[in-house]
């Protein structure tokens, strides 16, 4: 009886509340379907999550001189300044040829360090950039110390779409 009154006895309350309900539903339709809010990011296979150290393995296998010595061979043999410079030059050229997100401020970085001291440092980044595809390998040297080799992509404002296929 009370409900009946609410609809027929008080039409001024029933129809405005229906209108309010429709407005709320239209708003949430926009939020859910238009903006895609609350969609789980986990169901999308992210390129940056399933990368491996393949790029770094290939980079370290790169022959740097005519004798066929690779980047890792040179680094493992406790190289002198001139050899380090040669490796740095070759790696710098290779990094330029690596795939990068298009139309973004993105740079591949390569750092070799031993005992917290950087031996080779090819770094370039923009302020506020994030790191992606971090790859790390430890190389043993002749004097039984370890070289830590890092490769990563610094990118400002890169989305998952930008990173796919890299």
């Amino acid at each position: 009886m009370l409900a009946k009154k609410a609809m027929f006895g008080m039409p001024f309350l029933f129809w405005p509340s229906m209108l309010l309900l429709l407005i709320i539903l239209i708003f949430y339709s926009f939020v859910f379907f238009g903006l895609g809010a609350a969609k789980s990011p986990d169901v999308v296979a992210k390129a940056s999550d399933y990368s491996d150290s393949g790029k770094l393995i290939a980079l370290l296998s790169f022959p740097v001189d005519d004798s066929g010595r690779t980047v890792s061979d040179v680094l493992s043999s406790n190289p002198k300044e001139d050899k380090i410079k040669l490796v740095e030059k070759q790696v710098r050229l290779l990094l330029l040829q690596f795939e990068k997100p298009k139309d973004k401020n993105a740079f591949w970085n390569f750092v070799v360090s031993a005992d917290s001291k950087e031996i080779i440092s090819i770094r370039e980044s923009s302020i506020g950039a994030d790191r992606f595809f971090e790859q790390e390998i430890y190389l043993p040297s002749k004097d039984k110390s370890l070289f830590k080799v890092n490769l990563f992509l610094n990118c400002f404002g890169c989305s998952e779409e930008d990173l796919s296929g890299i």
Partner: protein
Amino acid sequence: MKKGALIIGDFLGMILEFIPVIIVSIFILFVAFAFLNEKIDTHDIEVFMLSRDLLYSDSCLAFSDDYRVFPMHVDTKKLDDERLGSCFSKSSMGFRITLLDSQGREVKSAKSLTLKQEGYLTKGASVNYPVCKAVPEYKCSKRKELIVYHTENKIQSGFLVIEVVNRVS
């Protein structure tokens, strides 16, 4: 007559009472349906898996000697259509492999494509795969990997371009 009119009035009242409930239920149904049927895009991870299979497996392109397999090292002798077809097969997926030297010149190429897939994966098109883009059921992409390749007597560095066509729906 008076009683009948009362019954009809009660019935209409009930329907009006249930209208908000019906609207909200339909809305919830739509939201649930949209989220349960959320599209999971696996194309990129499939291309990544293919590239790793090709570059890490002895039965695909990876160079091997008597003792070990060298990942990311390509044996140019293994780069042929027959081997590609046997080392990785998925009926909805086709691919073309092009080996480039460090200057970007083509060294060797092989493919595992059906005639139809070859039509989608146009080689040398200035725009990226125009036919493939026009058909929503197919997705095409290209992946370029830095590799080391072994020829008869030399080890050189280069790039392996993997072009993939995949039926996604």
